[in-house]
């Protein structure tokens, strides 16, 4: 990561994003004008207390929800302008998702779970299966490809989910509290795996988290407070802080 900020490619940009839930008196502004840029190849953490709008911002960036005002650009495409079909295409090709609760398709095997997004993308079945095996091997589950999620441990399920998120070689991988449902050791393994994918394969990783181990490996940290971007911390600042404290 020697390149300066100025020459880095922007993969996601949000401009004055406002998201409101409910109407009239009961309306809640989950996001209140968030403007930010996310660069290709970085490992970004979004942090904030629950109810801060962290998950909402995450959903906006991932094309899972549309903003009420402002715009979200992914690869310079404005998400709000897309038809449902185009949005499905974007989710399929450009974004990979990892969830706190794993969210694998319970009725399909690990291999089928990883293959599915590729079939949606129109990849021939043989090719899709081959790549799925490759990805499962990459996350260390090559030998358990024929097991269904209910036959795998939490950590293994999350590994399958990570393999699945990489299926269509997305521009960004969104991880919503990926270690939230795992014990410390397994959580650490998942973090290491994500960090490796980030540095070895150049995958852009955006994660919502309050796991401090996760923050330690992040290039940048967005702090969200009351629906606004309160602070952006870079890795250099963090290290400096750690050093001065020590």
């Amino acid at each position: 990561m020697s390149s300066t900020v100025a020459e880095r490619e922007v993969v996601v940009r949000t401009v004055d994003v406002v998201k409101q839930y409910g109407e009239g008196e009961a309306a809640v502004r989950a996001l209140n004008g968030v403007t930010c840029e996310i660069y290709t190849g970085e490992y970004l953490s979004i942090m904030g207390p629950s109810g801060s709008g962290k998950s909402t911002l995450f959903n906006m960036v991932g094309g899972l929800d549309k903003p009420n005002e402002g715009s979200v650009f992914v690869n310079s495409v404005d998400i709000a302008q897309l038809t449902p079909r185009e949005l499905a295409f974007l989710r399929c090709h450009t974004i990979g998702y990892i969830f706190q609760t794993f969210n694998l398709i319970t009725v399909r095997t690990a291999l089928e779970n990883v293959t599915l997004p590729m079939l949606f993308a129109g990849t021939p079945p043989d090719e899709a299966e081959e790549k799925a095996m490759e990805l499962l091997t990459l996350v260390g589950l090559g030998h358990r490809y024929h097991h269904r999620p209910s036959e795998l441990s939490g950590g293994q399920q999350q590994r399958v989910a990570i393999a699945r998120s990489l299926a269509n070689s997305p521009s960004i991988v969104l991880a919503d509290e990926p270690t939230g449902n795992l014990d410390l050791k397994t959580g650490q393994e998942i973090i290491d795996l994500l960090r490796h994918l980030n540095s070895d394969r150049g995958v852009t990783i955006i994660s919502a988290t309050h796991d401090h181990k996760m923050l330690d490996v992040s290039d940048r940290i967005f702090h969200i407070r009351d629906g606004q971007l309160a602070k952006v911390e870079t890795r250099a600042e963090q290290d400096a802080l750690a050093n001065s404290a020590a």
Partner: protein
Amino acid sequence: MKQTTFKNVDPPFWVAWNQAKASIRVRFFRQMITTAGIALGIAFFCSMQTIRVAGGPTVQSEDQLRWLVGTSLVMCLVGVTNSMLMSVTERFREIGTIKCLGASDGFIVKVFFLEALLLGVGGSATGAILGTGLMSFVQSNQGGHVTLLGSFLTALMGTVIGVVMTVCAAVAPAIQAAKMPAAAALRMDI
């Protein structure tokens, strides 16, 4: 900045077909209860209809019989709709997940349509044959007259009504879920 181009590809039919089959196979017990609900409703309707066409020495008048058939139809409509609605709504999260993987709304509806079609045909045919067969037997023993064509038509009617109801009751909530923003579908917890 990389530019995204949108070309529309839908996965081949067998992807949806396999997903529907897997969903029935893996959740077999749950799905069989749903199917039993459909079968019982249709069996009830078919047996009432058989009494009506048998014209045996029943105590009821034609009007009363019509009323019975009508009520049984409403009952089985509510029963089938209830079991299908439940089986779709408890899977909203799965729908949200599949949306995240890049499935089009059409694909999601297609999976639920196929699944309901399989369950509907299986359940309705079983129920229709059971209901019509048993009641034809009972009616014949009591001096009624049930023609083969009559019971065939009754069973056919029951099957068609059952399949249409099952598919409608599954596809309507599936369309609703498929149209939701993915985040909203994922939030649904039942």
